[in-house]
């Protein structure tokens, strides 16, 4: 039985008995090739997304399997991009899954010569303290004429233009409440 199957799987046998005597097609196909499917078909789910590079706003489909991104490609339904992507958009999977992605909070103390790892929670608290400190040091209540300023010049921020609207909204809202003015964005660059 086993031998029979083995013989039948032998391409030479298939050449002699099948439709492909020259052994250049059907007979030479391996079991792996015969069972091949695309990995997008076997994905667990597909998320609708948008390319993070330029501002054309090409629609992307993000294929996910076992909690990992296995493919990112254009969404043909989009009236903007019609499913197409440029080289950067096409490299999106590498962008999000590549080894260049940092995983841990890193900390460089004053005068330090190397990065240290830092716990996220601790780092957040340290930033809170520093924000309040810088805010206090740069605080201005009024100008020379006594007109209210109610602001701090001790803090600044520069955001990239790949931030979501919701994120920008919270950034501006929080900083404004803190009295921080120098909240800027790539949009001015």
């Amino acid at each position: 039985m086993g031998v029979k199957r083995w013989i039948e799987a032998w391409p030479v046998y298939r050449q002699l008995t099948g439709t492909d005597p020259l052994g250049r097609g059907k007979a030479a196909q391996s079991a792996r090739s015969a069972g091949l499917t695309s990995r997008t078909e076997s994905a667990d789910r597909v998320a609708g997304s948008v390319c993070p590079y330029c501002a054309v706003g090409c629609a992307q489909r993000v294929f996910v399997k076992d909690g990992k991104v296995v493919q990112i490609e254009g969404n043909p339904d989009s009236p903007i991009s019609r499913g197409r992507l440029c080289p950067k958009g096409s490299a999106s999977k590498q962008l999000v899954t590549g080894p260049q992605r940092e995983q841990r909070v890193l900390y460089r103390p004053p005068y330090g010569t190397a990065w240290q790892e830092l716990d996220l929670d601790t780092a957040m608290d340290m930033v809170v303290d520093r924000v309040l400190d810088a805010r206090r040091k740069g605080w201005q209540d009024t100008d020379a004429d006594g007109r209210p300023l109610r602001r701090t010049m001790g803090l600044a921020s520069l955001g990239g233009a790949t931030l979501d609207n919701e994120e920008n909204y919270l950034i501006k809202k929080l900083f404004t409440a803190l009295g921080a003015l120098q909240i800027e964005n790539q949009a001015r660059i």
Partner: protein
Amino acid sequence: MTAENSFYGPLADPAGDAGHREHPPRMGFFTDTSVCIGCKACEVACKEWNGIPEDGIDLLGMSFDNTGMLGASSWRHVAFIEQERPLGRQDAGLAGLPVGPSSTEEAEEVVADALEVARRGGGDLGTAPVDLGFPSFDLPGAGTGTETRTQFRWLMSSDVCKHCTHAGCLDVCPTGALFRTEFGTVVVQPDICNGCGYCVSGCPYGVIDRRPDDGRAWKCTMCYDRLRDGLEPACAKACPTDSIQFGPLDELRRNADRRLAALHEAGVTEAQLYGRDPEDGVGGDGAFFLLLDDPEVYGLPPDPVVPTRDLMSMWKHAGVAASALLAVSAAVFVRGGRR
């Protein structure tokens, strides 16, 4: 199901010839280089889908081409050609500018000279890193000092495996790793290939190559896995301007004929189809092109022929030689007789 033209000549149904019954229509690429914007999305989309390794971060000086050639790790390659001639009725706006002679030839010389001393003469481009170093040569643009350039065009073209009707690589493969699929395409099966390297020399286009650290031969599969699920190949899917069109070959050929006529009408008389003709030396390409200059300008052979064309003749000569050897071997003993 071998046909009369199994090895050479027009062959209507290569998949059927390879034993596939009730197969889908032959699928192919039509690359219309007249709308290629040289963005290289095809190269990246291909690499992302097929998980192909990076093949050298080297500046080549071939205009914006830093891939150089198709190879084991570059299954799409965008060529860039700067030329001192007009594109159809395009006006490059050089008239009246204080320009001297063109530099395109000198730039080509610099690259060509550097390639000559590379290990595989540049044939490793697309497969392995090629560092051209920092050549220093005669002053570029020196020319004879009298001419001024008045015309210019910049051609871009995405090259790919041709998936020939008669594929040299497939014919010579001794393991059956290379096979013709039900779509009429030519694919290497990585679970089979033992890296004999024969296909590399069998290809008249210089497409397939062996990956040094991996030992196996690799080339475009026309995304065989995607095709099986009814998807289009990654490069065609990504191509922003639809320069790379994918579909049933018959349909693509009709599109190409229309496009060619339209371009000729629009004054782009230099447009020509390449690999479209089923009567050519490889029986027509499954991936064919609309070019704006002669094929060799893009690094393509002008009139490729599948080596298998001469199969019978070669074996005939070998047979004569073998017979002669046998005869002579016998003869040298006959004269001496038994000792």
